[in-house]
């Protein structure tokens, strides 16, 4: 009886761990970008994208990912317009990052439009996520 319970528990744990090893929300999202035509993702391209400045059409300070998040993703950021404090983006220091598909999609959509004035391509989004995910 007891042994059976332990075996059941272990089976459940194994299934869960295999599931999570197979498909994290981040992997799912990256795969969906590939399905939309993106090729291999590059942290290096993501890094460049992150720092690239875009003029603000209304004459405010130039916008970029790094303007609010900084180039050091292990540090706190600060929104250049609202002053809102932003927690570090790097999962290596902030384990809450890149865990929820809904959140990743929401902020990529909002921030691409705010910074670039357009939505990002699947390739750009994959590169950005890969850069954030591997930042040390």
């Amino acid at each position: 009886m007891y042994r059976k319970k332990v075996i059941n528990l272990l089976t459940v744990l194994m299934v869960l761990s295999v599931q999570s090893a197979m498909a994290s929300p981040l992997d799912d999202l990256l795969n969906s970008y590939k399905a939309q035509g993106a090729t291999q993702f590059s942290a290096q391209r993501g890094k460049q994208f992150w720092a690239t400045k875009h003029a603000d059409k209304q004459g405010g300070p130039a916008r970029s990912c790094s303007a609010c998040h900084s180039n050091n993703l292990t540090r706190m950021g600060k929104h250049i317009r609202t002053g809102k404090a932003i927690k570090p983006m790097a999962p290596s220091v902030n384990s809450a990052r890149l865990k929820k598909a809904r959140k990743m999609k929401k902020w990529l959509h909002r921030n691409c439009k705010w910074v670039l004035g357009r939505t990002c391509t699947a390739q750009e989004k994959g590169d950005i996520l890969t850069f954030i995910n591997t930042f040390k």
Partner: protein
Amino acid sequence: MKNSNLIQAILFTLVAGLVSANANADSGADLYKSECSACHIAYPPAFLTSASWDAVLAHLDDHFGDNAELAAQELASIKQYVEKNSFDHSRIKRRYGNRFDTPGTPLRVTKTRFFRAIHDEVPDRLVTGNPAVKTFARCEVCHRGAQYGSFDEDEVRIPR
């Protein structure tokens, strides 16, 4: 403190209205709270009319200069919640009729007649001229229970 009885009565009914609005919490309420408190306090829906909420929610891609767009489904759910609990359905509206109706469709709580009426005794130097406060938009700086939907006058502490 002229009109202070009226103000207290107004505040009381306002807070009571907020509490009753919380009672019929649904996913719209939860979504509203989690999404709309990410950057500022979630202003109680009763602070704006349904028409004002519609106008705010129709332009989330330029939300006072920031992009606050939501997925269509979440937007619909939040819209339903704020409209159901807007100023139009508040106790203030029921009790005072059109007395606090604001002409036009203000997007900011601070532009509403009700807000102005209950803050007319607060001089600018304590808020916009006060580095510790800066703006009337951050209710929680002075209304210490604002995050919990409480705007009782007794809880007001203006930082110096």
